[in-house]
């Protein structure tokens, strides 16, 4: 069992947490969420909407800390120290938009996905505030909406059980017992077939095993898993590994359709070009935090960007000649310096 209680693991921390949550919520409710207005340190894109007057998903001051032994010290005398791969990170997802979180590989972006899903490592301490659809969430609430309100689209076919037919995997576990369970199982089968039909997967695919899927089929199967329980927000963690840009952009059409239907997508990627092509807004991730959260249109010119690192990223783009202005390329690479090896790429 993952230690979900870690989120509020100290009593005084919990008191402070709730107090801060109340104040922040009151403050948040008073904010007028008019579209295209700068607030919460971010700017909006045309697609961004505040359904019911709040963000679909909002993360404020998220910190993920690990207690670990210092690797630089001798084995027996090493002291524990605290590593904070994510520190005071804030990001929002609106209805109708794709927000890309862009950062170097191995910089801890996947931990953001885990934290939003309420999946924590046993030795992790998670602090901060998360709202989902206007409701403040604690670890138990995040566990309740896991898969149902907020769904994860993982990176690769390794996330499918190698010994289970993909149809059964997509359907997932039926709830209830006796007759209710059979009815739920039948409902899930109908839903799975409907999703397979919608995403162009032949009916025979449900009888295949993961190793028999092509890359494109596997991606669509993973998306069907996420959509099974009709979520409002999709967190996609590097969903297009190894695809060239054109194919990756096309693979993102399904996410676009989901956003257009009123959902919100948090696309976590190391690929800035992909982010600029498909996202409505871009959150630039560096050293465990989001240094700038801005509409993708602001990447048209460096003057529109606020943070020096965002500008360095702009200069490092191929169409701007990889200009190493202010050592942009190395700056991007160095974002991965406090790497925790959390990612495959």
């Amino acid at each position: 069992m993952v230690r979900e209680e870690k989120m509020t693991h100290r009593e005084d921390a919990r008191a402070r947490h709730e107090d801060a949550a109340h104040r922040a919520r009151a403050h948040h409710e008073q904010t007028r969420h008019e579209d295209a207005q700068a607030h919460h340190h971010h700017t909006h894109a045309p697609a961004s909407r505040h359904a019911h007057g709040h963000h679909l998903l909002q993360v404020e001051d998220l910190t993920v800390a690990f207690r670990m032994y210092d690797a630089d010290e001798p084995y027996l005398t090493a002291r524990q120290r605290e590593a904070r791969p994510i520190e005071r990170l804030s990001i929002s997802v609106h209805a109708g938009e794709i927000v890309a979180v862009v950062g170097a590989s191995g910089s801890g972006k996947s931990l953001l996905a885990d934290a939003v899903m309420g999946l924590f490592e046993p030795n992790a301490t998670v602090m901060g505030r998360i709202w989902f659809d206007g409701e403040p969430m604690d670890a138990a609430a995040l566990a309740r909406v896991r898969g149902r309100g907020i769904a994860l689209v993982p990176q690769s076919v390794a996330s499918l059980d190698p010994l289970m037919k993909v149809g059964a995997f997509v359907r997932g576990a039926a709830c209830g017992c006796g007759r209710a369970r059979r009815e739920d199982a039948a409902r899930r089968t109908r839903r799975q077939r409907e999703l397979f039909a919608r995403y162009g997967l032949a009916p025979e695919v449900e009888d295949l095993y993961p190793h028999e899927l092509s890359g494109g089929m596997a991606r669509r199967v993973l998306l069907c898993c996420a959509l099974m329980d009709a979520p409002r927000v999709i967190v996609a963690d590097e969903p297009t590994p190894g695809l060239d840009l054109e194919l990756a952009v096309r693979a993102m059409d399904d996410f676009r359709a989901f956003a257009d239907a009123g959902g919100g997508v948090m696309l976590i990627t190391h690929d800035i070009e992909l982010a600029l092509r498909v996202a409505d807004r871009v959150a630039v991730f560096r050293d465990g935090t989001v240094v700038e959260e801005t509409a993708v249109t602001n990447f048209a010119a460096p003057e529109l960007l606020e943070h020096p690192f965002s500008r360095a990223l702009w200069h490092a783009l191929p169409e701007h000649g990889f200009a190493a202005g202010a050592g942009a390329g190395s700056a991007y690479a160095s974002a991965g310096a406090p790497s925790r090896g959390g990612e495959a790429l």
Partner: protein
Amino acid sequence: MAKYILHNALRFLLLMVAVSVVVFTLVSLSPVDPVQANVGQAALLSMSPEKRAQLDAYWGVGTPLPERYLSWASALVQGDMGTSLRYNAPVAQVIAARAANSLALMAIAWVASGVIGFLLGVLAGVRRGSLVDKLVKSYCFVLAASPTFWIGLLFLMVFAVGLGWFPLGFSVPVGKAAADVTLLDALHHIALPAITLSVVGVANVALHTREKTIDVMESDYVRFARARGMTAWQVARRHGLRNLVLPAITLQFAQISEIFGGSVLVEQVFSYPGLGQAAVTAGLGGDVALLAGIALVSAALVFGGNLAANVLYGVVDPRMRRRGGAR
């Protein structure tokens, strides 16, 4: 399919040849003088030279190794496993008489250690770091580090001598006519050796299963299943067990050789008349035909176990069953 069978038959044949050559070589290198071992030091000294030469010929002393091996092997090919000089009976008959005892003992220990070890391993792996995990781990480390014969002696002292719950040894009550021995008697006598063998076997199976369970519970697909809102136990039931079946099969059949090795020691400690005890007697008495016979039977058993594991793998794992299938 025919190729697979032929391939395995050839491997089995090579294994048998290798095992028997090793047995014969080891016996010929052994310092044990079979005549002295079987008639005793005192009798040997007071023996006339003619008698001595006769016995040497009977036990094959002085016959070159290749010659002995070839005559034994040619007889074996015709279905004759030779004669046990120590028991003064055909080897096949000696083995058959004792195999029932040994196989019952090993089967109980094999099933018990497999089932209990698997359950404890899964429990510890799913609840990693918890009190249950620590208890299971401590048990396994202590048991895995203790010699089997020592555990046997300990159990004998506590449960047979101290508490008097179980008999001190043998497979049937001493002094009872063979016709009067009931099944209950037999079970009463097999219990303590079987428990000893199981208790030791559990440690090995549980530790391996625990590692595999942790691997599975940390895999991407379990993580994803959790991210879809399943509880830990739902995930363990739906994905955990399914993926633990393969390593469990491998482990369970690899365990056959462990159990066999353990049974030699346990039978010795409990004076339990099985194959293990016969092997020890044959080894110490220079009874090469019986030793080779037992070695062949046990090697065949282990080979059969591994072959069964391979075949079951193909049945259970779709990646092997449908290799190169629909794409």
